[in-house]
């Protein structure tokens, strides 16, 4: 009997020991043990959020997201030697398919494979699915592919500075730089999701296991005002124009003056956004929104519009100082061709692009009113166009204006603007006196949902009557001004040339000029306003022989595209 009791007690003790041990492992050490083996059965994945696309106004693609791949090698598993592998891969990976190009690629691959102390090496980033398929067909052991997102530009380098590009930030994450990619980076990027689940030894999910999922939010698509036909016409003709006139560079902007929507924006030289790393930083800035220049005579229409709106002058007001050079302080104001037109009307002042006449107008307008109007026209402040990289040259402070500054500003010297500021200001003349904010994006779309961007109301800067008067002057300038030889009869063009000397170290360069032409058509109901500027054209210093013919070359394409018929004039 005592033996039975001892045995029973021992059984109970053993049982208690097992329970105690289980309690220790499962309750006390449970969390720690679970944590130490979690990596064996729990796996986490980042759910990628594809970057949004950028579309033209007809919803065709300007930039599209695409599946690209990173090609890598697991050195321990490679079936080929580094030399053999580089020989096999180079023909598929070399961008330059010449013998030298392929040899260079071979060297690069070999260099990557010869790294010591590592088992995994990346060979090439951003390879396309077609290249991936071709390489997979070789059935080489030890190489693999990791998906990575890429950007595809169906129109190559068209509108490159306007679109910007996607590079990497300091954390190695994709980030948009410059243009639309930079300005709308946050909405384009979306938000990646994350999934954590329990998996079996083969990596297959355990259905009754734990699953945590945070869904990815895809990037939003941008629909722009950009018209591909207009944009491509600008790209092609600007390149030809820059080459033909031997200019250092050039920019063109086409805008709908009624909405402020940018229909096209091109600068040359430009770059290929899909290979942005091959270009220097100077290519990335968009000169159309960031480069400031003295506008010269194209600015006369803004000063004249201000004087007309302030009722200081009317189109028939006679210039009392236009008989010869005008002495202001120690400076002498002369006309561009040293021809003087005594008692010319304000319309003639614009038609003849008369500096002395504009000096007369500026003096009559006075410093305070001039500054007031310039600020209203947006000179000296950013247009707030939805592109990254806009800059604005500051307007001289109110107290720093001298008599000479006032007079020279009358004909666009001693004052700096950017092309976008200028087209916006003259756009107000085309839009019956209402200044619009230039916009590139018209709406954001996410799946089937569409969101309009903030409404562009516009601000009145001059009266409708003034806008009609200054438009009539611009029509006369286009017909009878120095660029009359290139005028396209019947298309109701209002325009103005501008040849500006380039300021260098406190004086003006005697040989170099910036040539510009700004105009809109048809003047009674404009379908577009276009600004063309060429830096340092070599064939002729005059805008009437460079920027103006280029403006009309592009305009002739636009007349056709916008269904504009010539009318008897």
């Amino acid at each position, binding site marked *: 009997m005592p033996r039975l009791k001892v045995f029973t007690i021992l059984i109970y003790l053993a049982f208690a020991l097992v329970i105690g041990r289980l309690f220790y492992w499962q309750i006390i050490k449970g969390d720690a043990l679970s944590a130490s083996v979690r990596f064996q059965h729990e796996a986490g994945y980042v759910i990628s959020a594809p970057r949004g696309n950028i579309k033209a106004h007809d919803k*065709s*693609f300007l930039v*599209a997201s*695409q*599946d690209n791949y990173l090609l890598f090698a697991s050195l321990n598993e490679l079936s080929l030697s580094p030399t053999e592998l580089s020989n096999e891969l180079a023909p598929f990976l070399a961008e330059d398919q010449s013998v030298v190009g392929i040899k260079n690629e071979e060297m690069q691959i070999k260099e990557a494979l010869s790294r010591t102390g590592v088992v995994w090496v990346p060979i090439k980033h951003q390879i396309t*699915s077609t290249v991936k398929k071709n390489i997979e067909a070789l059935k080489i052991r030890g190489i693999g592919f990791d998906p990575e997102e890429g950007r*595809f530009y*169906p*129109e*190559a380098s*068209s509108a490159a500075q306007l679109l910007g590009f996607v590079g990497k930030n300091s954390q190695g994450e994709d980030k948009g730089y410059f243009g639309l990619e930079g300005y709308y980076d946050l909405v384009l990027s979306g938000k990646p999701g994350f999934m954590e689940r329990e998996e*079996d030894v083969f990596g*297959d*999910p*355990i*259905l*009754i296991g734990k699953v945590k999922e945070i869904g990815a939010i895809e990037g939003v698509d941008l629909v722009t005002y950009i018209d*591909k*036909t207009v944009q*491509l016409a600008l790209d092609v003709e600007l390149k030809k124009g820059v080459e033909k006139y031997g200019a250092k560079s050039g920019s063109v902007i086409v805008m709908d003056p009624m909405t402020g929507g940018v229909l096209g924006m091109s600068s040359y030289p430009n770059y290929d956004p899909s290979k942005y790393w091959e270009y220097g930083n100077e290519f990335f800035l968009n000169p159309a929104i960031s480069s400031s220049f003295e506008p010269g005579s194209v600015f006369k229409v803004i000063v004249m519009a201000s004087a007309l709106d302030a009722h200081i002058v009317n189109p028939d007001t006679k210039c009392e100082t236009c008989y010869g050079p005008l002495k202001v302080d120690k400076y002498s104001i002369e006309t561009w061709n040293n021809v003087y037109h005594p008692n010319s009307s304000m319309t003639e002042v614009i038609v003849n692009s008369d500096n002395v006449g504009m000096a007369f107008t500026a003096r009559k307008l006075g410093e305070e009113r001039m500054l007031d109007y310039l600020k209203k026209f947006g000179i000296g402040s950013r247009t707030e166009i939805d592109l990254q990289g806009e800059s604005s040259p500051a307007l001289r402070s109110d107290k720093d204006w001298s008599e000479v500054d006032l007079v020279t500003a009358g004909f666009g010297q001693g004052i700096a603007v950017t092309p976008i500021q200028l087209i916006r200001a003259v756009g107000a003349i085309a839009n019956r006196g209402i200044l619009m904010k230039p916009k590139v994006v018209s709406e954001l779309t996410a799946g089937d949902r569409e969101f309009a961007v903030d409404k562009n109301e516009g601000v009145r800067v001059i009266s409708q009557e003034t806008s009609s008067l200054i438009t009539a002057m611009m029509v006369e300038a286009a017909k009878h001004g120095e660029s009359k030889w290139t005028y396209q009869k*019947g298309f109701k063009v209002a325009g103005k040339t501008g040849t500006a000397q380039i300021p260098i170290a406190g004086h003006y360069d005697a040989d170099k000029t910036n040539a510009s032409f700004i105009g809109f058509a048809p003047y009674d109901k404009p379908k577009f306003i276009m600004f063309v500027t060429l830096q340092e054209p070599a064939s002729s210093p005059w805008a009437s022989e460079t920027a103006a013919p280029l403006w009309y070359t592009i305009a*002739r394409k636009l007349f*056709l595209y916008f269904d504009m*018929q*010539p009318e008897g004039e």
Partner: protein
Amino acid sequence: MRIFKVKKHLESGNKRNWVLLSSLSVFVILIISTVVFTIYTASLSDRVILLDKKELTIILANNELNHELVELSSLTKLNEESNLLGFIRSSSIFYIKSEESIAKLP
């Protein structure tokens, strides 16, 4: 009295057998259902993996088709191809008034 005792003994024996049989059945059912459930979830898991793989294939195919569409919608390429095929832009444009008659019969 003895007969009653024997009967009682037999009854309690039957009851014990019945409890044992029931417990055994429950235990067997439990084991079988656990096995069946495990097989079922394993096969479901397999189906989920299959569906996951199918989804990925479809997504990749869709992306490739999208890419093809984007590539084909390129105006630059269309321009190049039309030039190769011999299409050229007219260098001079003639505008005709809508009311003007062309080759009108007398």
